[in-house]
């Protein structure tokens, strides 16, 4: 019988291996799966390629994962924030790789990875330095660049409600990359504020159908990452 619920963040991130590609949801702090990221720090997998819109702030969440030297490369659209110190420092030292991708292209490449589209064309980034080495082609006289799907071994996503089948709803703009990242990962790992019985989520209101989700853990009082960052907390101080 199907039951995707696991009992702890530790169990949820088990099996993430050295060298894995891991997508991490969130737009800045909104939707960041802090508890899952911290469990991944404790778990210790190294040489990770991270796909995420940003590169973390302060010394918690993704920034802490990078600070712990578990990340070899990051694929993102906006690694710079007013309060990011960890990524910039390692990047300037040449100790972390960056693949910079326009935000819409990033979202679409992830969706493509989940939808079985190996590649697509887009006008975004034409005539810019970000498309210099990319294949280009005209459609109705309008140039477009070829972009490839991104898939991941694992995704870490935060949601509002989940059931044992993995059906998910999200909260407001914390939805952001969650749905496409669940689609694009071999193993989509989700932390939910609340686990409910099947059927409690109206089938018309399911945002991520359970087929895209593999493990769910209830974290009923997730930390507010923006608050942790503002208070300059470090991940190991949270325990």
């Amino acid at each position, binding site marked *: 019988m*199907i039951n995707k619920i696991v009992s702890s963040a530790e169990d949820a991130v088990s099996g993430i291996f050295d060298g894995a590609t891991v997508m991490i949801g969130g737009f800045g702090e909104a939707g960041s799966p802090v508890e899952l990221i911290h469990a991944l720090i404790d778990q210790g997998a190294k040489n990770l390629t991270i796909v995420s819109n940003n590169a973390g702030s302060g010394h918690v969440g993704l920034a802490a994962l990078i600070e712990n030297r578990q990340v070899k490369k990051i694929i993102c659209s906006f690694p710079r924030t007013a309060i990011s110190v960890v990524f910039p420092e390692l990047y300037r030292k040449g100790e972390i790789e960056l693949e910079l991708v326009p935000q819409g292209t990033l979202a679409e490449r992830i969706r493509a990875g989940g*939808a079985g589209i190996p590649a697509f064309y887009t006008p975004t980034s034409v005539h810019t330095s970000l498309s210099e080495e990319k294949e280009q082609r005209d459609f109705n006289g309008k140039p477009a660049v070829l972009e490839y799907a991104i898939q991941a071994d694992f995704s870490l996503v935060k949601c509002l409600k989940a059931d044992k089948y993995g059906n998910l709803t999200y909260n407001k703009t914390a939805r952001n990359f969650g749905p496409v990242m669940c689609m694009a990962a071999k193993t989509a790992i989700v932390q939910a504020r609340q686990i409910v019985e099947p059927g409690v989520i109206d*089938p018309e209101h*399911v945002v991520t*159908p*359970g*087929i895209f989700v593999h493990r769910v853990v209830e974290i009923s009082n997730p930390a507010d990452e923006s608050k942790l960052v503002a208070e300059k907390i470090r991940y190991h101080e949270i325990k």
Partner: protein
Amino acid sequence: MNRNLLRKKYDTMKSNDKNLGWNVNEMAQKVAMDIPDGAYVNLGIGIPELVAGYIPEGREVIYHTENGLLGMGKVAESQTEDPELVNAGKKYVTAIPGAAYFHHADSFAMIRGGHIDICVLGAYQVSEEGDLANWSTGNPDDIPAVGGAMDLVAGVKTIYVITKHCTKIGSSKIVKQCTYPLTGKNVVSRIYTDLAIMDVIDKKLYVSELAPGVSFEYVQQKTEARLN
């Protein structure tokens, strides 16, 4: 039509022909035995739909229908039929608690993105290399119609075919090479017919089970392709 009526219809068909081997319900039961607990399954229109009736107790299978529902339940009772709740065969169906509705592009993202575990389809022909022809007879007078068949064989992890071994006029549907237009190439993993169950391994057919009273030689005689 509810599942019992559907069974009865096929049983009647069966009693009218004199073939050896399994009837369609037994064939569907054989397929059902091979669907593991927790599988996400898409059943083609017609005979493949029978499979849902034979999933062994204790296994939970989630049915996907490409017109936008994951967690399809049983066929609707006649008083509760909803014309806006149908399956891909346009039958009135139901949804289980824990179902989800979604639009067509999202639905085919499940299929094409490799998220469905098993799809069970009918066939005009299957080749020994696992090629499938099930959408067109190639007859120029027929109206061509493909539906989701090519998406399913291209995207679903495992394709099972359930079909009579021979056509009504006795020619083999298990062939060296398909003569009908292809739905997909090297896509079929396993074939369930009234005479045998065959696996496609490295572009060869291996008989894994024979119907009661049917010999390997008898099946080979009824089969254009070479069996192993």
